[in-house]
């Protein structure tokens, strides 16, 4: 991993000069700003049981399904389309270093964008003058959920980019996988037919990978090691498959 930081700094720089990054960032911050404004309107009209922070993270899936593919779709697909992967892999770097650097850069940007939305809460507290609006428990739990789940989401985006040389296909594939994981799991967990007979073990798997329940636990301040393990193991698997995918393309180039 000698060249990891050289590659990582290069990838961060390339993300920062890419227009797609700014499109993703603008859409994300605009959307989250809108969500936050709506929450404030609701809270100002009537008293609510939960804190604004826990409501704020309920819509995490929408930016995750759109922004993660936008940030990751280019990373490996574009290298293969342009052929620059050939010049890259004929220097003393390994495929693992390349994939990890691309993952690391996209992940840091994802976390930085989410982190910047903490400013919304700071502004709210500053102008409302009421510390209750900055309920740190759900806020920290929510951001922790974003950071931990983001590892897996970004890794899936990188994997989608590793299987094709067309970045649009990579983006759509990434979006479908994320929607399948987040929304598909949610839809299946509510299905009664999964509770019958032989399908029960499958129900256990669906419950274990139910992202919405993970979010609820995190925002309640419950850090369950099983949830963390789920995201870490998913991340590792997705990255291993990304590395294998890039190497398999070389073997059959």
């Amino acid at each position: 991993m000698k060249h990891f930081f050289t590659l990582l700094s290069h990838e961060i720089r390339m993300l920062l000069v890419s227009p797609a990054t700014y499109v993703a960032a603008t859409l994300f911050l605009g959307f989250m700003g809108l969500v936050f404004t709506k929450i404030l309107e609701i809270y100002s009209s009537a008293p609510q049981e939960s804190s604004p922070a826990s409501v704020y993270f309920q819509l995490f899936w929408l930016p995750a399904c759109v922004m993660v593919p936008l940030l990751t779709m280019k990373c490996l697909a574009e290298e293969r389309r342009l052929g620059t992967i050939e010049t890259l892999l004929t220097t003393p770097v390994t495929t693992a270093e390349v994939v990890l650097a691309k993952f690391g850069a996209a992940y840091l940007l994802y976390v930085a964008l989410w982190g910047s939305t903490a400013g919304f809460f700071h502004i709210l507290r500053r102008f409302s003058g009421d510390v209750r609006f900055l309920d740190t428990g759900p806020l920290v739990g929510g951001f922790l959920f974003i950071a931990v789940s983001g590892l897996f989401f970004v890794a899936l985006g990188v994997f989608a980019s590793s299987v094709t040389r067309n970045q649009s296909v990579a983006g759509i594939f990434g979006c479908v996988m994320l929607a399948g994981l987040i929304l598909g799991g949610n839809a299946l967990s509510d299905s009664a037919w999964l509770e019958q007979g032989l399908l029960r073990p499958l129900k256990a798997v669906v419950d274990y990978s139910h992202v919405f329940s993970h979010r609820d636990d995190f925002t309640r301040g419950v850090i369950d090691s099983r949830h963390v393990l789920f995201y870490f193991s998913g991340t590792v698997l997705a990255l291993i498959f990304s590395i294998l995918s890039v190497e398999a393309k070389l073997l059959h180039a």
Partner: protein
Amino acid sequence: MSDSAPAIEVSHLVKTYGGVTAVSDISFTVARGEIVGFLGPNGAGKSTTMRILTGYLPANSGSVRICGIPVATRPGDVKKSIGYMPENNPLPEDMRVSEYLYFRGRLKEVARRQLGPRIDEVLEVCDLKRVRHKIIGQLSKGYRQRVGIAEAILAEPPVIIMDEPTIGLDPHQILIVRDLIASLRGRMTVIISSHILPEIEMTCDRVLIINQGRVVAQGTPADLRREMFGLSTYLLDVAGDPAALPAALAAVDPSLAVSATGEPAADGFRRITVTTARHDELGEALLRGLAGPAFRLRSLHRVEPTLEDVFLAATRRSWDTVAAKPAAQAPAA
């Protein structure tokens, strides 16, 4: 890295893609400091061989050693010993030239302190100083090719591999690239593929011709001419009795023979083609021998087959061999 080992040793290399054999039992050696031209028609297996040499593609069988280091088992070490410019020279579109070279230098493990001066040096050598702050995507084809070459020589590796480095360049740029490659002679081992054969002939010490995944000829251009064409040919514009010419030629050298006699022009001169098995220069002897009153010699020149002729003959020969094999097997079947 063994200092006594050849720069490149390829032994019985085979590479297949989905049942199609791209490289079939290739073996060759390139000495240190040598510049070798790698020729072959499209689809002959040149780029595949070069990619295997760089460690980018694995071979199905056979062995490749770069400076004594086996590519299959130590690709990381091999990659430190090579500078590679792939076909079509893919470059990142949105980086500046100097930034790109700095990034590549760091990946190639050039020490941070040495990298700045080394970048200045390669920018100077490749005539890129004017565009060092320009974005690569905005550069002309010629500049882009030179950025690729600058990148390949940046870390001063012992072996440079360039796949069609002069493709798409104008004659002036070709001249610059040729001088650049020639300047590496003795310091680095260079293997270049190209379709511009005069280019290869002027730049390279030795030529490898590959067709259908096999090496069909290798040697210096002069050796290949001898191997492919055997006889040396002279063209004479001469006036006099053609019937007396063989005797006059035999007096100059017994190996000289008239192979073709042209029709006489209005002034009595005709084009005579003379061949000989000797490869040393007989022009002066011919001028002296035909200077007598029986003949008037107006012009004489030795016909050198070009590398293009050699290339065409070598590839044609390999096609003929391939075509002859099924024909020979047919009666047995």
